């Protein structure tokens, strides 16, 4: 924990004071500041993907495949549009909820609950990746969607889809590994010995960001 003077100024005067002084600008653990800066760069990467998707979708003269139909599932004879994506969204939101609570229990030094909630988060993440693998298989094998073309309409649909969801899925996979490692360390009492659980919050930031990106992908790619 950083030791700050008790007289930190609030508001814009505080911004000037924080940025102009010859000292640590952000009174947070360095891991947290670095994670935020990494997430900022990741925001730019994902926005570039989504912007390129917007560009190709606007410029194509072929009709864009109807995502509601492409990602529909038939359950018990009922054809429900976009069902798989709705379930994936709920799973990821739930994982974000368990992660937020893990961070909270971490700061209360509740070792077992923190680890349990983090393992639950990782399991939900794994569940998400599993459903994504199912979705990809369905599109590649059954529908014949390829990065360079597909029988459903505009060829750019495939490249946008695989690039955007693939990169996001890679983030989720990386997050599952990251969370599992941190959760195992929590359980072993590593952070009790270290004296702080801030690593749990830093891992949480990453995981919430993965959920955040999905909110944008859900809106722009699946619903638009």
């Amino acid at each position: 924990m950083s030791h700050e003077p008790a007289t930190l100024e609030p508001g814009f005067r505080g911004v000037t004071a924080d940025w102009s002084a010859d000292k640590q600008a952000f009174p947070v653990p360095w891991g947290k500041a670095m994670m935020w800066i990494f997430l900022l760069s990741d925001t730019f990467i994902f926005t570039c993907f989504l912007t390129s998707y917007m560009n190709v979708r606007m410029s194509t003269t072929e009709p864009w495949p109807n995502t509601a139909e492409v990602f529909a599932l038939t359950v018990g004879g009922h054809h429900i549009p976009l069902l798989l994506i709705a379930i994936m969204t709920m799973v990821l939101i739930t994982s974000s909820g368990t992660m937020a609570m893990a961070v909270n229990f971490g700061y209360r030094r509740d070792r077992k609950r923190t680890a349990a909630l983090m393992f639950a988060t990782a399991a939900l993440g794994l569940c998400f990746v599993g459903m994504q693998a199912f979705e990809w298989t369905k599109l590649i094998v059954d529908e014949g969607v390829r990065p360079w073309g597909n029988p459903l309409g505009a060829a750019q649909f495939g490249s946008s889809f695989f690039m955007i969801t693939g990169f996001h899925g890679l983030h989720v996979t990386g997050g599952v590994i990251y969370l599992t490692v941190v959760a195992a360390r929590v359980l072993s009492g590593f952070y009790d010995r270290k004296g702080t659980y801030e690593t749990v919050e830093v891992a949480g930031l990453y995981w919430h960001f993965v959920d955040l990106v999905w909110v944008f992908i859900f809106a722009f790619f699946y619903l638009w």
Partner: protein
Amino acid sequence: MAVRQHDIQADAPENHSPAHAAAHGAHAEGQQHPIKLYLWVWVLLFVFSAFSYMVDYFQLQGALRWTLILVFMVIKASFIVAIFMHMAWERLALKLAILVPPLSLLILIGLMAIEGDYTFLTRLAWFAK
């Protein structure tokens, strides 16, 4: 951190766990918020996701569709960043450093929209013959 802990204390008078009380001692630790707050945000994220899904399910079209999708998206994103990622309790310097730079992306989006439109018209003009 001292400033933040006071804000949180005001927000969470019902929280009296020993660790929480300890966090207000000489070395305050991290972000302490009541679990109830997270559960509420969780529920709201569910509700707004359901709303987004309904936009598609009921096949709303046109300006209404785009507006609702964007509104629900922004609400969900705001909740995640503000509460789950604790941005609401960070100092303004960190908020500005992280939240302002992405606004430059609006310029990229604007330029690429113009470019996409231009490419579309060019394709219509040349490939339709």
